[in-house]
């Protein structure tokens, strides 16, 4: 949601604010004579400067475009964005501080809070280089980029990166405690054609070990955490919310979504549970039931090696699979939000691959986008990751390996550049109310 632009009067730029008149004043003529036209200065000089600087940079990078068509300039250095999510009090801020200090070889931009749901139009952002820090402005421009593919916040960050080459190596985005990270992740996960100067590296979810189970189970409509409302509002008119909550039995908290979207989970403050090792195991298996794909680290005071959480390339590669196999502890199945792993044989042909995409993947993901074979199903997939191989009959039976990545309804397929990977296919789905049996049957009907 975006807000409106700031049209506030500014004395430095606009001079003295004229006094409003009724037109009935006896000395109206005098008053009007003293009011002078003041056209111009519609925006600040700083803003014009920023726009100019950015355009200059883009113009320079255009020299690398080798044709007018949509070739992507490979020269452009893209800056990774890591989204850090977790409830208030889980230790996000401490983690951010630690990363900024440990990653002192990097110039790290830290963007705080409520991004993507901003009521502020201009926003300062902190850039850290070890102990040193300074501020840079983000121009959120107009509230509207209607019929635009880019979110205004993402655009503001891209613009900032473009006009300050070399000033930023990494971006950490701390969401507000109650944010569902999926829409934010999707904003930053843009197709290559858009030629963004940033890319999403991964989502890190910080959990307060002591309280996480309570958080997951507290699904009362007015569940609060540190004063923030954490139950998931249903996507209905606000007025209907309370009613529908009971009717649909949504039963999910923001914590479920934050865990589902995570590429790495930090189970923080484990020191508080030092006396109860069993409980830590219960918590871990509970979390892994929801998201079996994300690596989980037990931490204290946000202490974690930055190699474990930065530069993951979580939306490009598919590394976490091996780990997944060993950490699958079976516990009580929580149908509300869970992971399903599908292992199946390599596909026989390009045709079978296409059928798999159209008849299976799109059926799962595009339920509300015109593929409503299973519209009545309550499932909603948050995250898709997969590796699919097929025999390319057009190319002497060579085996093609493809990576599938998805956030909610959007998915992408690209070549798996790692060679020597398994020829089997594997698809991991993390989502709400996944009916494993039904989904497996659907898959089997496709690759019979």
């Amino acid at each position, binding site marked *: *949601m975006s807000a*409106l*632009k700031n*049209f*506030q*009067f500014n004395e430095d730029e*606009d001079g003295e*604010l*004229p006094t*409003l*008149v009724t*037109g*009935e004043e006896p000395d109206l003529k005098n008053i*009007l004579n003293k*009011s*002078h*036209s*003041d*056209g*111009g*200065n*519609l*925006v600040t000089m700083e*803003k*014009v400067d920023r*726009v*100019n600087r950015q*355009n*200059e940079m*883009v113009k320079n990078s*255009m020299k690398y*475009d080798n044709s*007018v068509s*949509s070739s992507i300039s490979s020269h452009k250095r893209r800056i990774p964005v890591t989204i850090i999510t977790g409830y208030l009090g889980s230790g996000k801020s401490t983690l951010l501080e630690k990363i900024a200090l440990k990653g002192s070889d990097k110039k790290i931009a830290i963007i705080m809070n409520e991004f993507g749901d901003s009521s502020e139009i201009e926003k300062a952002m902190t850039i850290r280089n070890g102990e040193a820090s300074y501020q840079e402005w983000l121009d959120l421009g*107009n*509230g*509207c*980029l*209607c*019929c*635009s*593919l*880019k979110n205004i916040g993402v655009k503001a960050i891209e613009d900032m990166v473009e006009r300050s080459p070399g000033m930023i190596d990494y971006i950490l985005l701390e969401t507000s405690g109650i944010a569902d990270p999926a829409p934010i992740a999707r904003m930053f996960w843009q*197709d290559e*054609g*858009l030629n963004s100067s940033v890319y999403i590296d991964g989502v890190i979810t910080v959990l307060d070990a002591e309280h996480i189970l309570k958080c997951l189970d507290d699904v009362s409509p007015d569940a609060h955490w540190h004063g923030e409302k954490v139950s998931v509002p249903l*996507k209905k*008119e*606000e007025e209907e919310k309370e009613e529908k909550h009971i009717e649909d039995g949504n039963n999910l908290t923001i914590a479920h979504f934050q865990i589902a979207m995570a590429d790495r989970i930090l189970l923080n403050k484990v020191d508080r549970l030092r006396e109860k090792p069993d409980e830590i195991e219960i918590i871990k298996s509970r979390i892994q039931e929801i998201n079996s794909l994300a690596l989980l680290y037990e931490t204290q005071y946000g202490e974690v090696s930055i190699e474990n959480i930065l530069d993951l390339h979580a939306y490009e590669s598919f590394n976490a699979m091996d780990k997944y196999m060993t950490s699958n502890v079976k516990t009580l199945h929580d149908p509300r939000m869970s992971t399903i792993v599908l292992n199946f044989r390599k596909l026989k042909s390009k045709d079978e691959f296409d059928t798999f995409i159209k008849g299976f993947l*799109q059926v799962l*993901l*595009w339920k*509300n*986008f*015109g593929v*409503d074979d299973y519209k009545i199903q309550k499932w909603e997939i948050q995250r898709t990751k997969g590796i699919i191989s097929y025999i390319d009959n057009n190319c002497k039976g060579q085996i093609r390996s493809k990576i599938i990545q998805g956030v909610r*309804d*959007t*998915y*992408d397929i690209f070549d798996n550049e790692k060679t020597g990977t398994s020829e089997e296919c594997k698809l991991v789905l993390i989502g709400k109310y996944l009916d494993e049996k039904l989904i497996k049957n659907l898959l089997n009907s496709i690759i019979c």
Partner: protein
Amino acid sequence: MTTKVYCAGLQCGKETDSQLKCPICLKNGIIQIFCDETCYKNNYKAHKALHYKSDDDHSPYDPFPKFKYTGPLRPHYPLTPKREVPDDIPKPDWSQNGLPIEEQRNDRLSSIPIYKKDEIKKIRKACMLGREVLDIAAAAIRPGITTDELDEIVHNETIKRKAYPSPLNYYNFPKSVCTSINETICHGIPDKTVLKEGDIINLDVSLYYQGFHADLNETYYVGEKIDKEAINTVETARECLKIAIKQCKPGTTFQSLGDFIEKHATQNKTSVVKTYCGHGVGKFFHCQPSIPHYANNRTPGVMKPGMVFTIEPMINEGTWRDVTWPDDWTSTTQDGKRSAQFEHTLLVTEHGVEILTARNKKSPGGPRQRIK
């Protein structure tokens, strides 16, 4: 009969019994009433667009003199005041303060609406009216007319048909139509810019009639002396839309449209703008699906009978990259070369597609022969 008075603050717009007027406007014979000083202050930067540069210089001026424009086109301020819409015309929620609350709420749903018969009937009617308004405005295009005069025509023809001009105050857009000249890709603000022989201009008309929006645009040639690059860009854009519409039928993915559009654009040595896309339209001005016009995009969704959306490729003579003016609306090409666009509102039917905003025999404009 007393006429209701509304606050001139674009972010207020509330009915008011205030008598307080901007003295600078009053001096120039323009009445702009604000609730109070707070409203005046909060909306001042937007309001100021109506003021002359100085008391003794009433000639049009460039409000962003320090901005490095990419081409020869400049804005010509001041703007004319926000045009009024009679009380009996149903208005979208942003008409008052600029914020499309219902649309923002709907965005969280993330699904493509399927319209029922009676709704389609209303959308069809809105689209028909939209076509009438566009044709009337287009007929007025000639060297010498200003974009503000075109805005006046669009506004008056829209309210004459008991419809609301959707762009008006949408996120505080100040005018009733978008007028995009030469290097302007889209969202040009009508002002005192005078059209000249050889220009190309896009008129993007959207209107809201009985609860439903229509959205269409076309690019027109100004005068007869048009150079061959301009013709190639405009005709390629026209063909790109036509080619994309040909693909539309139940089962077509939205992501595939960009492949066809970009292929044709590239064949004609033009490029496809990536920042702006087609969109769902109807109950909302903009909603799902998002329809990018470039190749290899990954937008979700498959066409299904009852879906209503626009396709509106923007085709550039040179680079596909765009630059936004400091007004935060006007989008121009990065290299200052021309850009052309065409748009229709489309309905997916059982067996294909219906162009709800189709041209008729009398519609002005239309293709011209390319010059070799």
